């Protein structure tokens, strides 16, 4: 079983899909995130937002924060999910290193999302090089069928 998983990882890494990509946008940060599933795509969008403020690859995963957000539609769910990163930064100095175990659920037309944020509390040891004021609905796109993709513009 572990052999199978290893070989899967290796073959997966050979064709590894990029997690996200930024585009030219005059005043703001516009990106697309990709994934094998919509859940993974949302997780990669979280990394894209983090990458505007700090280098998430360098963040030690010392603490875990369980996150739950809701939305009337997928777009609102995504915006609320990504806003959570900004909220946790402002209120707890939390720097996201990864967004794991993302799960999406639809109940009576409303969406909810659960995720586990792993990362560290900022105390001066990481470079913080940017600011994101808000996640906007501007040019927001969600492909909820394969190939999965979300497009977001952040106000920076």
């Amino acid at each position: 079983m572990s052999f199978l998983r290893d070989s899967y990882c290796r073959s997966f890494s050979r064709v590894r899909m990029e997690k996200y990509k930024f585009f030219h946008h005059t005043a703001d940060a516009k990106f697309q995130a990709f994934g094998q599933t919509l859940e993974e795509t949302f997780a990669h969008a979280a990394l894209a937002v983090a990458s505007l403020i700090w280098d998430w690859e360098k963040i030690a995963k010392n603490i875990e924060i369980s996150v739950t957000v809701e939305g009337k539609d997928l777009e609102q769910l995504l915006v609320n999910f990504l806003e959570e990163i900004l909220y946790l930064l402002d209120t707890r100095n939390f720097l996201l290193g990864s967004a794991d175990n993302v799960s999406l659920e639809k109940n009576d037309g409303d969406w909810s999302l659960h995720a586990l944020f792993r990362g560290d509390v900022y105390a001066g040891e990481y470079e913080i090089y940017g600011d994101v004021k808000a996640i906007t609905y501007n040019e927001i796109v969600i492909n909820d069928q394969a190939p999965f993709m979300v497009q977001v513009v952040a106000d920076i």
Partner: protein
Amino acid sequence: MELKRIDANTWEIPKHADMKVPAVIYASEKLLAGVKGDKTLQQAKNVACLRGIQRKAYVMPDAHQGYGFPIGGVAAFDLEEGIISPGGVGYDINCGVRLLKTDYTEQDILDKKKLLLAEIFKEVPAGVGKGGTTRLSRRELEEVCTKGAEWAVANGYGMKQDLQKTEENGRMEEADPSFLSQRALERGAPQLGTLGAGNHFIEIQKVSEIFDFDVAKVFGIHSVDQIMVMIHCGSRGLGHQVASDYIRLMENKFGIRGLPDRELINAPILSDLGNRYYKSMSAAVNFAFANRQMIAHWVRQVFQKVMGSSEGMDQVYDVCHNVAKFEQHTIEGRVKKVCIHRKGATRSFGPGRREIPEIYREVGQPVLIPGSMGTASYILVGTSKAEELSFGSTAHGAGRVMSRHEARRRFRGEKIKEELEQKGIELRSTSWRSVAEEASQAYKDVDEVVRISHEAGIGQLVAKVVPVGVMKG
């Protein structure tokens, strides 16, 4: 899209399709070419379609694409039929500029410039994740949001005279912090008295040119080489959260069907939600006024410590760049109260308006237009003509032309610092990457922006200032 040239610097998108009024753009051919490259014009057209819009939708010379409204967009709405829109104010509510004068000259501070900047850098918390030195209880924070700069002065930050030289006297009376979400208060609590990051800055500047000596004198600007201090920041996470909260609440209440852009979501001014947004936005405006009041106080303390005196460091003015408010304007020959949205625009009231301080009432209000990092900034004066041409509004800055991502790819922070030093400009920042993102080449030419404001008559040139020391958030 049809674009009609009205005169040298005025262009109009005639009323068509769902537009309720025409849209007017103040721009030179050069600035217009830039604007055509993004979605500014389409966004101006969308604004012109909103319910209750009065006279025209206006686009300032520094405009660029925003969300919903363009940045540099000005629109007024009828109080009964009209709407109020968080997207018409922006996420950084009351992002604005405060200018202090000094009686020092460049020569006076020459050998202390580095120290002044280092001390300001030490005193004023900046950068993301940097909390303020002031920890507030919920009750205190609500008081800040109710009283704005008045709270700061009452708590020992600055002087009473600063208040009358602040737009709205540093306090929007309609603010009601009981409408703020828990999250907005939580984000605001650690951030009062902080500069933030992005394009926010404190600059030690010198006057490099005076265009209108009489008006300059009224503003306290008396000579070339006079040292000034400019502070540019806003309402931090508290304001951002207010915008996000009310966009969501309005979407959930009114739905998004029929909106050309989801960020144009709005509520009738008379509705409960419209009213709650206005009062929450006003609370965020007050937070930002208090923020700049505290920072100005610390800057004065640094001058006191380093130079031996902070006497003469009077406030010239403090202006909002992102705000909605109720103002009286003449529309079709009738004076009426309307709800003005200024998103990336500065109020530019001319002589006589009762909203401006008595000492400036004969000449018009100071209009503060910061340039990009390392370039000039300008002090203009509001005009009566602006009231006819743009509901008393003009530009607010240089306006970006290049994404931060692209700027980071092209420029290096360390190199920029070197180049600025060669020009005699000291630079302190929390991050090199953020310096690269704010490279002046990533911005429009602010000289061109203010020239068009002047020529179009929506804000007249008074003085030009250039940086000698820059602290970037």
